[in-house]
């Protein structure tokens, strides 16, 4: 590494501003690295140290990480779509058409959102199966499994509420059929149906409710549960690795690696 470049980075990391944000201080010692993770609100969800064999591709196929990736794509494209979308009855469909025909890269944006949503549902299921068949749900991870189930439901609800927003025939009838399922609940079925749609039929109120659920309530819930999910991984002793899996070389086993990909 060239000395000068090293100097700039080091000077920056030693500056007052940097130090006011990252309090752990500079240094490559294990302590410094551990502190850097622990003192960061985002990173502290993760373990400060991970065994290298836990982050091999074969163990998890990175399904959870990929799911998180699609979620990020969905948040970013979703916010951009919100700039063009009005959740009102005649305007919603016209906005779809504007995105399709006149907004620069609007169709790309919309397709990215849609395909990411499909991919996320697929990945969530794949993640769940992988966890299940590896037996990774067992004690002490049973609570995280339950949180995972909650996240699955939130993902499906996000998918379902997003389906109404284009306000085309497909959307209308899909939500009509879907919401009618809720009225089969004994005794309070019709009340739930009414509450869900803000009326007895899919109409302007339903569109507004689904919009709020899709853009505010459910994403917030998802973020909270995702945070808890990640935090629990650390608390439950890191990613689960099957005992029957062939052990890495003894040297690797002993060596500890940081979360950084080297």
């Amino acid at each position: 590494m060239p000395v000068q470049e090293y100097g700039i980075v080091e000077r920056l990391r030693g500056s007052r501003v940097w130090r006011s944000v990252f309090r752990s201080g500079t240094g490559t010692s294990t302590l410094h690295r551990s502190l850097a993770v622990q003192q960061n609100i985002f990173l502290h969800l993760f373990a400060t140290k991970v065994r290298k064999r836990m982050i091999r591709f074969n163990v998890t196929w990175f399904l959870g990480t990929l799911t998180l990736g699609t979620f990020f794509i969905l948040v970013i494209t979703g916010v951009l779509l919100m700039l063009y979308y009005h959740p009102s009855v005649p305007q919603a469909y016209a906005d779809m058409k504007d995105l399709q025909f006149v907004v620069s890269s609007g169709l790309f944006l919309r397709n990215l959102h849609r395909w990411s949503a499909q991919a996320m549902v697929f990945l969530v299921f794949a993640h769940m199966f992988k966890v299940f068949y590896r037996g990774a749900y067992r004690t002490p991870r049973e609570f995280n499994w339950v949180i995972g189930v909650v996240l699955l439901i939130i993902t499906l609800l996000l998918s379902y509420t997003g389906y109404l927003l284009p306000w085309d025939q497909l959307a209308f009838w899909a939500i009509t059929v879907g919401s009618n399922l809720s009225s089969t609940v004994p005794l309070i079925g019709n009340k739930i149906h009414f509450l869900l749609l803000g009326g007895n039929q899919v109409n302007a109120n339903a569109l507004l409710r689904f919009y709020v659920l899709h853009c505010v309530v459910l994403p917030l819930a998802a973020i909270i549960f995702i945070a808890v999910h990640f935090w629990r991984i650390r608390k439950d002793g890191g990613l689960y690795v099957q005992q029957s899996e062939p052990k890495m070389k003894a040297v690797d086993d002993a060596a500890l690696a940081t979360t950084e990909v080297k």
Partner: protein
Amino acid sequence: MQSLRKSISSVWRALFGDPVRAFGVVSLLLLAVLAIAPAKEHFSEWHSYQNRYLSLIRDRGDAVSLRRRFQPGIQQVWLPQLGVVDRCATCHEGLTEASLADVHAQPFRQHPSIPHKLDEFGCVICHRGQGAATTVAEAHQSERAGEEPILPARYIESGCGQCHQNALTGTPHLNQGRVMLARYGCVRCHTAKLPDGSTVVATDDPPSLMHVADKTTRAWIYSWLKDPQAYASTATMPNYKLSNSDASDISAFLVSSSTPRVGDTAAVEVKFTAPADPAVGATLYGESFCASCHAVQNAAGNIVGGNVGPELTRVGNKAKPEWMRAWLENPRSYNSTTLMPHYRFTPQQVTIMAGFLEAKLDSDYGTNVHLDAATPQQIAHGKKLTAELGCAACHEINGVKKPENFAPDLSRIGSKALAQIVFLPGMEHSLPRYISSKIQQPRAFGPGLKMPQFTLTTAQTSDLTNALLALTDRSHTMPDMLRVAAVRDTNYQPAGHAGKLMADLACFSCHRINGRGGDMAPDLTFEGSSVQRQWLDDFLKNPNTLRPSLIRRMPRLNLTDGDRKELTDYMLAVYQSPAIDQDSEPLTTNTPAVVEHGRQLFYSRYACQSCHIVDPKTDKGYIGPTLTAVGSRLTPAWIYAWLKNPQALRPGAIEPNQNVSDEDARAMTAFLMTQKGASKQVAKR
């Protein structure tokens, strides 16, 4: 095999073997994928059309001005009030370029001249299609979310009909379709509500069947029910495709439910000895101008005559002789609302006319009909069928109530979503196709459908489809300021004895007065200001024609002197225009010099002889009425006012307004008042 695997694994290692390298490769791939979005935008359809347009105008003479008016990018008409966002002009760049008249290749063709500005109404209001789209397939054909595909050009007049409820000169097909909607009885079963809240009113005149047995026989009713067009090809009654037994049962019920009227069956000497001169009947038929309303099929198979009354080709097969006499004596006693005038025929004339009409028969018609006497069960079945088929929607029938909401509502048929339509196998999936097929073959759409088979030409079906396509959702939600209401008949009714007389003579069947009546004959609203008393009296006594090129004429109604005086007095007193002051132009003779000046103006300056005839020897004009006797027909005040502004007196008159000065008008009036038709008067005496 081994080497292939080896090479693949070496490539893999080269690309993804090292995490840093893998990150770089993935980043490059992502960048390439992200480049697709702007690239697709750049190579979009509308860009290529705009480039084609630019190369089209490059080599033209007015390339510079065309290029200046060309605006790149998406072109949009946004009309929030109408809910219109049209981007059609993005590709259709040359719509308003008059100099591109020779370009016929779409999408650059010039729009035909229409009274509206394109940026005030957009495109989809008339053409349908999806205005927001910027690709051809989406804009023209899309139907996935209730969008309407583009309308074929022959139905484009339906677009006008969404706002214009009145008849426009530019929309002959729509107008014809609307007339048919009312005239073919469509709206007797179907409801068609117009945007202004009114409903389309039927203008046909289906006869009451309460006394039908007086008029005709059961055998004829049977034949008629089986195929109305076999009796008269112009019959508007549709074919119900009845089985023999059903037709027999209905005919039995209609005859049994008919109540006799005294006048029809009163024993009259039913002797129709052929008159001495066989032409007497034909002459009377001609003099009475029956052909103005009734048609007859001639030997060549052509239908000749009007369509106000029923065709009379085979009337002898239908009407019983006693009924025919009673009808000719006074049609109003059988049907108080008939359009037929009460001719004041003498008994002798009635005999001649009835004989002439009864001789109009086809000896082969109905010969193979042999009906057994009906049992009570059959009559009951006939009654049931009558109710089921909705006969009473049109005809008055004893014991059967007029059905309500008998057929589907057509008020918004022009916006019926394709998703709601069950098409026939192999049928083109479009609304115009569906509507026209429904009109042409209503029974093909399923067993048990009641709509009968109408006999319509392809052009008539297309016109009717036009009228139905105009009944859209949009027409109901259009802002009020854009709506043009239909001209509706008033319920004007002249008062007093003269009013009764006019009703009896059915003046309103042909003439229009104060916004009510037919359009076959001139509007009489200001007739009193227009004509002179003597002429009117003579005309009512013996109507002659003013326009030799017309076939339909005023019939001779054989009025008594008293009736004539009554009518003349009433018309001269009541039908006066407030704009015409008879005293300003008194019936005085003018000096020959003025008359001569008027003649010169008439012939040279205004060239009136192009359309009118004053001197039959030299003038050839036949567009306007003959003026040889205008001096004894019209009042000078009327002529003067007419010359000044014809359209002010009769809106839509085709005589051009030549901005005649007061002096010229006065001189020409003086000249025209000298045209008394003296030679004819002398000849008569």
